[in-house]
């Protein structure tokens, strides 16, 4: 009796926040990690706000008078039309994601409901294959069709990254969705396809949101396909950033400003949709 009373007295004491060296260690380790991840990004942003003289001067590493001159250089029309590159990146990422969704979501549904292992493996092969090995034949084919430099080859190539990604995420999503709802809808007189469109599809909006965000990010960030397949008027942002170093000496301030311009939209999206991104990236990995 008495011993149990003592125990129950001690329990609330233990759960009170107590000073522990292990907590201090953990907090400082987390601080170091934050600094390691944020520090370089902060450095890039601060360098984009400096004149090159300030970048070369280590006494102005942390305290300096910021300037927007580098951003003026980036958006200077004589340097190339940066607004157009932003628009191009957006068009390609948006259209490729949209078309991939139309193709991949029903396919993911069919593949998860009918357990089409071979078909799924074929599509997932696209995640494995080195992009260069597709670029050579694509370049051949697109040159024969004389459509290189336009948006179509770019969008098709980006869809190639987006579709397997969406398929992968949506398959693991549909596998978790109960079949009973569709079955009862079919009993109520809906056809199987109608049950998919009217019952399962609305229920899978969170999964579709995840797939859309990730597909957009990866398409926006893609460099290699656009490097080969884009023309002067369809150039996307990562290629435009790369072009900044095509000169004899590097204009570091402008290069950093250009890098900030390409990453900022993506980081903003990530800030607001963190939860979706994490669930998409870890989809399938934790099932074993």
């Amino acid at each position, binding site marked *: 009796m008495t011993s149990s009373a003592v125990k129950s007295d001690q329990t609330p004491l233990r759960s009170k926040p107590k000073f522990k060296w292990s907590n201090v260690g*953990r907090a400082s380790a*987390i601080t170091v*990690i934050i600094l*390691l*991840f944020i520090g*370089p*990004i902060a*450095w*890039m942003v601060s360098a984009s706000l400096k004149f090159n003289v300030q970048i*070369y001067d*280590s006494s102005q*590493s942390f305290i300096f008078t910021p300037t927007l001159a580098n951003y003026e250089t980036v958006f200077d029309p004589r340097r190339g039309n940066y607004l157009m590159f932003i628009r191009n990146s957006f068009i390609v990422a948006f259209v490729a994601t949209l078309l991939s969704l139309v*193709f991949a979501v*029903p396919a993911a549904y*069919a593949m998860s409901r*009918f357990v*089409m292992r071979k*078909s799924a493996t074929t*599509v997932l*092969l*696209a*995640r*494995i294959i*080195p*992009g*260069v*090995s597709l*670029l*050579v*034949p*694509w*370049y051949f*084919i697109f*040159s024969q069709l004389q459509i290189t430099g336009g948006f179509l080859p770019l969008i098709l190539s980006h869809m190639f990254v987006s579709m397997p990604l969406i398929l992968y995420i949506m398959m693991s999503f549909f596998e978790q969705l109960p079949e009973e709802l569709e079955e009862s809808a079919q009993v109520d007189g809906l*056809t*199987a*396809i109608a049950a*998919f469109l009217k019952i399962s599809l609305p229920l899978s909006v969170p999964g579709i949101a995840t797939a859309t965000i990730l597909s957009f990010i990866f398409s926006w*960030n893609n*460099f*290699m396909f656009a*490097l080969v397949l884009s023309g002067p008027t369809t150039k996307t*942002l*990562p290629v435009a*950033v790369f072009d*900044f170093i095509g000169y004899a000496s590097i204009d570091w301030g402008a*290069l*950093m400003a*250009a*890098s900030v311009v*390409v990453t900022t939209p993506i*980081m903003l999206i*990530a800030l607001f949709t*963190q939860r979706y*991104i*994490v669930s998409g*990236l*870890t989809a399938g*990995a934790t099932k*074993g």
Partner: protein
Amino acid sequence: MSLVERHEQVSTRERFSRWANRHRKWVLAGPSMIFVGLLLVIPLAWTLFLSFTDARRSVRRPFDFNGVDNYTEILTDTERFWPAVGRTISFTGGALFFQLIFGMIIALLLWKPFRGQGVVRTIVLLPLVATPVAVGMMWRLLFEPNIGFVNEFIGWFGVPPQPWLTDPSTSLATLTFVDVWQWTPMVALILLAGLTSLPEEPLEAARVDGANAWQRFWLIIVPLMRPVILAAVLLRGIDALKTFDILYATKGKGGGSFNDVETLNIYAYGLSFDYNEYGVASAVLILFFLIILGIIWVLQMQRKAK
């Protein structure tokens, strides 16, 4: 009359609907399969075909079969091909090794809830979503030998400045570090998802039996997390083998003037689009693809063997 017409109309639609529903498996999956077939299977077959030809210079120039000449040329090439294989393996191996260690440390640190966990998780996500080309440029400035912050930072501790990306002996290791910086978050998030779905009982039982944190980690957590760890290795390994953006953005064509960061992917890209040696490039790509498939096969065997 109109009644009959309407009946017929309905029956056509009905018939189509019935047909679509009966074959819904292929109606839903078909378009994707056709798309992938057109853009994957045909190009892959085309690459295989080109690898046995002397296609080069212009895409419109006629070309002939030359048997396995490309393959013998590559497999005996100790100047570019084999070093590229070595670099690909050391880059991927090094990156994976450190990503797993740091990823696990971060996942363990973020496992138990604390104030501000959401903010920390968002910060951890940033490197992973950042555009790789921009990340490459960013580290190019940070590692710049004369004006970069990294040399300034190590100078505070009395370490002499290093050449980093500018020296052939350190550039590949430096870029491995950049890859670790960018992709450790991905490994950490996958492992964290694995940790949070671990069953409570075995860990609690081990704690009651007096196992310390180190023993709990190696004897309980690691064996239970084995499938998740292998999945992370598989996902990251495939991407690391194919790394292109940060290598090309920091060192340019051919992996730098001494080819010091020329991995298989960079080599194949250079052959295709800088030198227009399509035949040889195709043969390199086929070999590269076989290497990747081999590694995946080994990992899958590991996953199945429990």
